[in-house]
């Protein structure tokens, strides 16, 4: 009965109102001039006081981007984006870099507190270290000193460029090269901030690391860049959360995340994506075009992606694993919800190169309202990946007759000893399940919440505990008004 009580509570909380993260923080901001050109790229680089090589790297990406075409293969529809009609840099105008949390603008801290992010180190909940990214810059990172004692580097990528340039230079773009795809290329040219994590050999990170992304300013795009390196035998769990104010305009978020796992290292990357999805008529919301990729470079390394995608007007996201090391493991667990006019085209790529590499894909798509939800995934097995193994499961749930659920898995196998399995189902919530719940006194909405949570349980159980609770609440809120 615990699950029922929990769900009841969840649904109760959901009834409090729609998107409660939609407020806007009124704070003095500094912007780059509107538009995108080489000068803007130089401006961003200069603002961040970057070394020459990084500026060159950005300019090279920008030159490539100009020659690229926006991809059209995803099952998402949106009006043509005017890349000149946005600010590519927006930061709270605080002249000095805060040395500790005490120096951070209290207005900013209040924003994160309002969002429920533990910013005060003494209030540590289950020991989570947080990097807070506000529009284009990282405003604070908690528990830095505690982590430094273990030799762990956890800071914003801008700080890493200043303090650990050799590491950044070695790994930046090594998993997602500048010209990888249109949005990653744009990000390479104009990325502003994001997190940098380095876990030294044999270290097990003592706490969850987390980044909280917040888009606040109007007409800005957020282009963050995250780089996580796990040296041999190390272990890290990283969480990512995001929200934005409610606005009529569409704002763009084009992030790049690169993970590198060496021998026996494990990286667990969890995302709860809750960008503003737009209103019930489909007005406004975030365009979320994200490139996430992990390289299992070492033998027996493991990269596990877990994502709960409830927000954004458009989600275009394929967290992938390159399984290069022998016996390496890739995992992808995903829940994607589309309600109202949301569109999601998300999935993964598992590229088996090393021997006896294994991958697991579990994707749960839920469509309601007029939402369109697509799973798009590729499992590719190279001739040398003998003994490779993949299992993929994609389940879709349809709520209402105006929505769509689509599954597009690709299997490319060039190795006779590899075993690849895929299964997909599409269904709606069965009447008998609803009847069972209703006859036990649950309302229609509670029953749906309960069933949806059950449908997603396989994925939710992969999330760190405190994220799992948040995710369950989000599921219920996202589906609000979809039944009745």
């Amino acid at each position, binding site marked *: 009965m615990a699950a029922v009580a929990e769900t009841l509570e969840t649904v109760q909380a959901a009834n409090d109102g729609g998107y409660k993260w939609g407020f806007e923080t009124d704070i003095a901001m500094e912007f780059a001039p509107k538009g995108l050109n080489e000068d803007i790229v130089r401006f961003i680089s200069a603002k961040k006081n970057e070394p020459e090589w990084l500026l060159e790297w950005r300019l090279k990406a920008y030159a490539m981007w100009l020659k690229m075409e926006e991809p059209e*293969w995803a099952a998402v529809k949106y009006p043509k984006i005017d890349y000149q009609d946005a600010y590519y840099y927006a930061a709270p105008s605080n002249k000095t870099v805060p040395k500790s949390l005490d120096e951070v603008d209290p207005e900013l801290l209040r924003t994160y507190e309002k969002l429920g992010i533990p910013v005060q180190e003494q209030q540590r909940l289950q020991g989570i270290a947080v990097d807070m990214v506000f529009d284009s810059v990282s405003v604070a990172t908690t528990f830095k000193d505690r982590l430094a004692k273990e030799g762990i580097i956890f800071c914003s990528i801008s700080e890493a460029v200043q303090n650990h340039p050799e590491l950044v230079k070695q790994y930046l773009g090594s998993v997602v090269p500048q010209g990888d795809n249109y949005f990653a290329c744009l990000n390479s040219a104009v990325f502003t901030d994001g997190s940098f994590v380095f876990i030294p050999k044999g270290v097990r990170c003592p706490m969850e690391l987390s980044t909280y992304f917040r888009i606040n300013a109007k007409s800005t795009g957020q282009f963050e860049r995250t780089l996580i390196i796990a040296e041999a035998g190390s272990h890290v769990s990283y969480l990512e959360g995001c929200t934005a104010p409610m606005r009529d305009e569409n704002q763009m978020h084009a992030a790049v995340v690169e993970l590198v796992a060496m021998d026996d290292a494990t990286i667990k990357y969890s995302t709860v994506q809750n960008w503003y999805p737009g209103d019930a008529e489909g007005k406004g919301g975030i365009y979320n075009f994200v490139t996430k990729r992990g390289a299992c470079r070492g033998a027996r390394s493991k990269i596990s992606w877990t994502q709960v995608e409830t927000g954004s007007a458009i989600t275009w996201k394929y967290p992938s694993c390159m399984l290069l090391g022998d016996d390496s493991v890739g995992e992808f667990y995903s829940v994607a919800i589309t309600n109202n006019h949301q569109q999601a085209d998300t999935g993964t790529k598992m590229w088996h190169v090393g021997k006896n590499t294994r991958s697991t894909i579990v994707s749960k798509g839920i469509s309601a309202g007029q939402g369109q939800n697509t799973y798009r995934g590729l499992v590719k097995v190279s*001739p040398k990946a003998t003994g490779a193994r993949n299992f993929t499961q994609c389940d*879709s749930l*349809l*709520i*209402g*007759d*105006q*929505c*769509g*659920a*689509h*599954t*597009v*898995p*690709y*299997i*490319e*196998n*060039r*190795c*006779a*000893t*590899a*075993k*690849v*399995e*895929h*299964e*997909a*189902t*599409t*269904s*709606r919530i069965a009447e008998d399940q609803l009847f069972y719940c209703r006859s036990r006194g649950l309302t229609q909405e509670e029953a749906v919440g309960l069933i949806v949570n059950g449908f997603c349980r396989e994925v939710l159980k992969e999330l760190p505990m405190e994220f799992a609770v948040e995710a369950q609440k989000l599921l219920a809120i996202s589906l609000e008004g979809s039944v009745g």
Partner: protein
Amino acid sequence: MNAQTSSAASSTAGAFLARFEGLREHLPGGRLPWLAKLRAEAAAFFAAAGLPNRRIEAWRYTDLAPIAQAGFSEALTLAAEAPALPPMRAPYRAVFVDGRFAENLSVMPEAYPCGSLAAGLDGTESRLGALAEDLPLVALNTMLFEDGLLLDLPAGAEGGVIEMLSVASHASRPIAFHPRHLIRLGDGASLTLIETSLGPAEATYLHNPVFEIAVGAGATLSHVRIQREGRAGFQLSTVHAAVQAGGTYDNFTLNAGARLVRNEIHASLLGPKAACHMNGAQLAGDGQHADTTTFLDHAAPDCASRQTYKTVLAGKSRGVFQGKILVRQAAQRTDGYQMNQALLLSEEAEIDAKPQLEIYADDVKCSHGATVGALDEAQLFYLRARGIPAEQARAMLVQAFLVEAVEGVTDPIAQAALAEATEGWWEREAA
């Protein structure tokens, strides 16, 4: 695709277009204004689209460059001597040599209209091109077809079993033929059509058939296709089937021959309670490329579809399966199922699979599955431990793997044809 092959592809499209320009007056129905217009429109479409290339999503796994390089022409004269034909299995047989109906070799039913399309073009204005979609290969066919089967089974008629035989003649140069088959079953009619395509082992030729099949309300068509083209031949086939309320279209396709085959099936379930079964087996050995691409369009409520495809790959071969199920918003209570499995018997084989669901109705039950793997060592061991030699054990397991797809074929004549086509495949390819 690099610039070189893509220019080769467009020049091939150019070669087909040039042949059309030269032949257009002489093609069957040249004096029918509506057909001349249809062919001209198809030529314009083909000129704009060109031969499909790998940048097109539906063609990402099948490269037509070998066709582009072959330089085909039409078989202008009939082969001097009739090709050797297999013995007749069914009471009726329609024989096509290089895409043209061979009346002297055929035995046709008299109870209903069934014969050469070229001879019966006059009444087909409303039918020709009505079911086929705008696809480059269909346009190529429309532009250049010379003949085909025209079959019109009246409502309630029992059509029995008809064999269709497509034979490529020995030609000294690469020939291309594009037969167009129009098949219509009236309400409640039923028919079994068993089509075998054959060709000489060493001849390079292109067989590009297009089927337009209309299955009336409550009618049943069982369509068995056995592709045994010569190992240097190419087959690009497109089947368009439209099924009305309560009708059933069954398609079974065996791909055993050809250097490259693309078997594309589009079925639309247009009325309530229509059904479609698509099953198939692909056996590809060294140097072969076998592609099955299916598209099932559920456009009406309460329809059911079942698909089971098995691919076995030996030597340096490549197998492709792409299957899409579309469930439109009106198609409530759809029951759709698709399974495709591949068995890789060699280190050099490659399989690419893309099952796809696109669903816009909520009260549906749709699922698909795909598996790819090698023979199960435990099963092999089991058989060998019982004294069965390794090769024989493998052959048994391959056969067992195919059973699920093949067992849908229930007509004894079709079963016999199928058994003949697959017999000894493993022994030949493993050698």
